[in-house]
């Protein structure tokens, strides 16, 4: 039997609001800096500025699904309910960033490639990743038994996260229209600071989202436990 979630102790509302303010403020500052200071790129011109949102969103997707992998594996090992709730919170936030990555890629692809979508390895594997985690969230919504839900979603989450290295390596393993991975190591130095700042800012937002979602999941689970206890008492 899995260990029940300990009683939820959320951070004080003021701390949470301050973290949100700092995170979103950092995104505004990083985006403003990138838009105002990065020069037009040789081939793409100012279209390059989409990189500052598309690439960090893709990195946050990978990172969030890595969190899913770690906590899903830990749930399967130790059976702690909090690990399941944290994995589920990261999965939801990862799906958000995955969806954003796909949409931003399409917005970039239309003017750069002349098409919104092409079934190449990078785009297709990113879509498959997104669908796996939409399935993960649907599974959680439809399974009522908490223990079964946690076990099944831990298995799906861990297997789904294993798709991340395939997405990352897809541009190397197959011939794709998508360019090789963008990173500070492969970029012109004029763009590296902007990319780093935007990645850090989005990381703060991702941490805020996962923390907040986890806090809500624990409250919901505590209410579920209370309802179960009340039903048992009323028998």
């Amino acid at each position, binding site marked *: 039997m899995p260990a029940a979630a300990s009683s*939820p102790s959320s951070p004080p509302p003021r701390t949470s609001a301050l973290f*949100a303010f700092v995170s*979103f403020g950092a*995104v505004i500052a990083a*985006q403003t800096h990138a838009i105002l200071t990065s020069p037009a790129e040789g081939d793409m*011109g*100012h*279209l390059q*500025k*989409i990189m500052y*949102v*598309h690439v960090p*969103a893709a990195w946050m997707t990978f990172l969030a699904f890595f969190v899913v992998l770690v906590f899903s594996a830990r749930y399967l090992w130790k059976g702690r309910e909090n690990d399941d709730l944290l994995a589920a919170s990261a999965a939801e*936030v990862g799906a*958000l960033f995955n*969806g*954003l990555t796909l*949409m*931003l890629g399409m*917005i*970039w692809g*239309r*003017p750069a490639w002349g098409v919104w979508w092409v079934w190449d390895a990078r785009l297709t594997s990113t879509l498959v990743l997104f669908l796996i985690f939409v399935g993960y969230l649907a599974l959680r919504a439809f399974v009522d038994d908490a223990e079964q839900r946690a076990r099944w979603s831990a298995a799906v989450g861990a297997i789904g996260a294993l798709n991340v290295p395939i997405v990352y390596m897809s541009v190397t393993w197959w011939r794709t229209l998508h360019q090789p991975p963008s990173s500070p190591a492969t970029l012109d130095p004029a763009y590296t600071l902007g990319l780093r700042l935007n990645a850090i800012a989005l990381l703060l*937002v991702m941490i805020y*989202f996962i923390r*907040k*979602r986890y*806090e*809500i999941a624990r*409250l*919901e689970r*505590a*209410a579920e436990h*209370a*309802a179960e*206890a*009340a039903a*048992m*008492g009323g028998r």
Partner: protein
Amino acid sequence: MIESNQVFIIAAYAVTWGGMLAYLAYLARRGGRARAESERMAPADRNAV
């Protein structure tokens, strides 16, 4: 006049902010509901004990 490429840049930033703010609103709504439910269940929990 806005160049055609600028439309895509504006769209990309609008989608990013739209997505983040929509999720923030969803968290606020779901959090409020969860807190209300948890407060409603608390007396029942105590009674059960």
